[in-house]
């Protein structure tokens, strides 16, 4: 019988609560669900092995988010240019007109997101998908709050052009 330590229980609880959200974050950054799941599983592993360094339990999620962003950045760096942003797998059946419209909408958004510079994409996803404050984004990415504001402004302006097409 294996003793279930507090650290293991805490990591597993965090996994149950945040896995889906973290894969969503990595998926939007990488444009690929499979890679996103790999990155997030590795992020939880890294988190678990270094959680003794976290002195403030309230910062655990923020720390995990930073790991996910860092590992996703590393994954993007390693990808060759042609494989950089693979589409998220779609339905394999022939689409109905409604489904086709929805797919076109998702593809347009995904392409818009993929076209953003890395930092803009990270700021946009953290702000508009995770609803983080500019201060929290700055902490997650390790950059100045002023830089976050600037990245968000530019990223949103670029994406709005694409979103207008879908109105």
């Amino acid at each position: 019988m294996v003793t279930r330590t507090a650290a293991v229980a805490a990591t597993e609880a965090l996994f149950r609560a945040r896995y889906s959200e973290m894969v969503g974050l990595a998926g939007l950054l990488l444009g690929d669900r499979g890679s996103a799941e790999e990155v997030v599983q590795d992020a939880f592993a890294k988190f678990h092995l270094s959680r003794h360094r976290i002195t403030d339990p309230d910062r655990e999620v923020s720390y995990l988010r930073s790991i996910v962003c860092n590992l996703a950045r590393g994954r993007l760096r390693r990808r060759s240019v042609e494989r950089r942003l693979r589409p998220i797998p779609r339905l394999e059946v022939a689409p109905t007109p409604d489904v086709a419209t929805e797919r076109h909408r998702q593809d347009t958004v995904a392409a818009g997101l993929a076209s953003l510079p890395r930092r803009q994409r990270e700021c946009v996803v953290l702000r508009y998908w995770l609803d983080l404050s500019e201060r929290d984004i700055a902490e997650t990415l390790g950059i100045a709050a002023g830089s976050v504001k600037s990245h968000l402004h530019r990223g949103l302006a670029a994406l709005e052009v694409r979103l207008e097409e879908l109105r």
Partner: protein
Amino acid sequence: MTGGEDRLRRALDDLAPRPAADEAALGGVERAVARRRRRTAVARVAAAVALVGVAAGGAALARAAGGDVDRPADVATPAQKGGGEGGGLSTLRTTVPGPERARIGNATFVVPEGWAATPLGSGDALCVAPVGNPEPRWEDCGGLAIYHGDLPGRGGRPYERDQPWSFAHGTDAPPCPFAAPGVAPAADVVEPGQTGRAYIDGGPRPVGDRTANFNQWFARCSVSHRTFTPRAWLLPKSRILILDVLGQPGAEAMLASFEFSGAGG
């Protein structure tokens, strides 16, 4: 909040994948924990061996540290011991300890069961061969020779891809690796076959998730007429050269197990 921001929120919400935090995903985390622990354990062993080598001033030990060695059998990772910091997610389930991995340069690879990775020569190199390094051997290695850093080529020159006989590092005709009955080893030497010294196959080949420059040559022993087709995989960015001179059956599986950290290829 602007309409544009609203639309963006909805669009991202639609786009983001949301897989369940199920047992399969948790299994992926456990495997990732084990992988990270293995890497740490191998690095620690290498660092410890390097320290001993420096302290003792022993050249052989220093070479071992430089080339990195396989984890000794009595060095278990915290996960295998079921202890260590946090206990490890893998302690929650019944898991099979992963295979032994050795490290060279920025790469690790699986050492096949019943084989061992041992330091080779005076540089940063490993011989990965069946335990005991049995005959036949090529340049003291009865398996795959893996070099890192300064990569040896024909006649003591640096390794060059697509060149004649880059697998033979001496300046003289090398002795035949296969013992011929009644023939003095010095008399049976390796000579180029009818196809000459040029390589017989080449091009890009996978090593782990990287692409290597591959070459294969034809060689024949002068007296016994035994033939063999040495193979080499060159990863120029990682500065790793893998030589399989005698044609080990498990070479492909080992090459497929290579994992690299950082940029390279």
